[in-house]
């Protein structure tokens, strides 16, 4: 990954009676695209603001390029922010907005003009120097905000849900543009979103946040295929979460009894004792139907079939009343509503989650 450029050490922050951040620590490498993912209220914006210097943490330190900047003013940090609502200065032209930071640094006029021109070209808005923010569309304002933040070539760029106000198509387009921009400039991006699809598409690493803590930190593949908690499993992609009792463990594969049937999973480095309880997460696309009565599986009844977004979504009820969701491509399946079936999955597609004492699990910050 390269050298560490930003480090947060046990950051804690309280607003009034609420603990918004509860011991957040992370090391971010140079040139990394890392996303803080979580629902509203989880503390991601506060974390960003602490990195920017707009808030001071109650405990913990912020280290930028090795220097302690916890108490440094935002205008003295080599960090720039792209705000959620763009925060373009309405009384200044696009060029003045973008060149503002350079003007503050007393650069020459020609230097500023050239830098502004280059920044506009980067975001594909060449020629827009003289426009006023009120004349621009949402997407254009977005780009100006980005240009304004990158013209400085800061060590770290913070982006606070920048694409939230855009429509779906534009959002997808901007996602790839942002990713390309980041690769081109080599700046470390710290990105905030609550849209898991966005996070999975753009990031080198994802930090899933909940209640002021990092619940899991890892690459998109890790977070998606190997969630460590049921929360992460549910937040990223759709997952079925089942609880059962371990029946046997053999060759790294565990077999558990749950919902009137049998469910299998890979141990993934954890050790399980027969008789102990275990929680498993299975993605809906991995749920299969089988007619083999002897295979490890769960009896279920089909409750409903819905078609949305190119996928068929089948809701099932298990023997103990738990709901399960299976998904498929295609418009229909040869099973009828009300029919009794048997569902199963490959052990490697089920993940044990919420395990209390992990052994050999991946560490945060690796």
């Amino acid at each position, binding site marked *: 990954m390269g050298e560490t450029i930003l480090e947060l050490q046990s950051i804690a922050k309280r*607003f009034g009676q609420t603990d*918004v951040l509860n011991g957040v620590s992370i090391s971010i490498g140079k040139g990394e695209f890392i996303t803080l993912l979580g629902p509203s209220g989880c503390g991601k*914006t506060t974390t960003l603001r602490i990195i920017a210097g707009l808030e001071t943490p109650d405990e913990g330190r912020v280290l930028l390029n090795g220097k302690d900047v916890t108490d440094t003013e935002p*205008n003295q940090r080599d960090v720039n*922010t792209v705000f959620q609502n763009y*925060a373009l*200065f*309405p*009384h200044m032209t696009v060029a003045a907005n973008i060149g503002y930071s350079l003007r503050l640094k007393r650069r020459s006029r020609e230097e500023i003009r050239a830098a502004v021109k280059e920044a506009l070209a980067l975001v594909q808005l060449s020629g827009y120097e003289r426009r006023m923010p009120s004349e621009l569309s949402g997407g254009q304002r977005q780009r100006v905000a980005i240009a304004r933040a990158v013209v400085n070539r800061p060590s770290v760029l913070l982006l606070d849900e920048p694409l939230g106000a855009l429509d779906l198509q534009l959002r997808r387009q901007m996602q790839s543009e942002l990713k390309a921009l980041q690769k081109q400039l080599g700046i470390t991006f710290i990105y905030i979103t609550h849209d898991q699809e966005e996070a999975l598409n753009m990031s080198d690493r994802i930090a899933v946040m909940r209640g002021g803590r990092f619940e899991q930190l890892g690459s998109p593949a890790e977070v998606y295929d190997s969630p460590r908690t049921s929360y992460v499993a549910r937040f990223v992609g759709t997952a079925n979460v089942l609880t059962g009792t371990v029946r046997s463990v053999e060759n790294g594969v565990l077999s558990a009894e749950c919902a009137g049937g049998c469910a299998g999973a890979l141990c993934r480095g954890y050790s399980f004792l027969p008789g102990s309880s275990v929680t498993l997460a299975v993605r809906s696309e991995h749920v299969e139907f089988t007619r083999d009565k002897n295979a490890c599986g769960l009896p279920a009844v089909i409750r409903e079939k819905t078609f949305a977004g190119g996928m068929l979504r089948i809701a099932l009820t298990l023997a103990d009343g738990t709901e399960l969701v299976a998904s498929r491509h295609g418009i229909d399946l040869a099973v009828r509503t009300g029919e009794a079936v048997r569902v199963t999955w490959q052990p490697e597609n089920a993940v044990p989650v919420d395990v209390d004492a992990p052994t050999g699990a991946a560490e945060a910050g690796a």
Partner: protein
Amino acid sequence: MKNRTRLPNLYLGLIIVILYLPIVLVVLYSFNESKISSVWSGFSLRWYETLFRDRAMFEALGNSLVLALSASLGAAAVGTLGAYGFTKVQLRTKSAVEYLSMLPIMIPEIILGMVFMAFFSLLGLPFGMTTLILAHTTFCIPYVYMLVKARLVGMDPSLAEAARDLGAGEARVFFDITLPLLAPAILSGMLLSFAMSLDDVIISIFVTGVNVNTLPIKVYTQIKTGVTPEINALCTLMLGATLLLVVLSNVLGKVGKPKAGGDPIKPAPKRDKKEEHS
């Protein structure tokens, strides 16, 4: 809701007519040839001529303009800085001082005039332009303060944050971002102060010196002592100036109005209020 009868509109019209009646009469009679107002003897600009030759009148006008300008500038400076400081600094005495500074527009003018006069006398200040400006500035400050504070409170905080993020210190944020965005409010406040100062009679009477006359004082004393039709002409001209100011402030009001993108300085609606702490 449909108006079933014409009655409401008639009423509105009637009151408005009555409202304008004195004004219209004054304007009308300013063109009256005759010296006695109740007799119309023909159209004439005679009184306007007399007016323009009245040096004392012009002196009073000059004084009033200088006074109004100084008062509105002073009020703008003190009021704007005060409103800004109020939102930034935490002091326990803040609200008390704010209440005090608003008092001048809540107290009957007669009391204010009396109080200023006594106090200036105590301080040994020379009665004249100095005391006039001090008194006028004091009662103009609330207008600017209220307008500027209202605008400040409604301003998007992320603009100042963005400026700091980009490298601006407190002073730069104030001059580059806050002040330009406050300009319409400051200007409205100044216009209002200007009008209030120009119109003031009571306070001015109390705090002016023997040799210094403001326009309203001159008009007032002339009305009381004996009426020259000159006054009609003067009033008409003042009316014209007022009309100009009203139109001007209306136009200015539209300059700051939002275009397609919505009000530029109001924060964009948050998608989820809870995001504020996430």
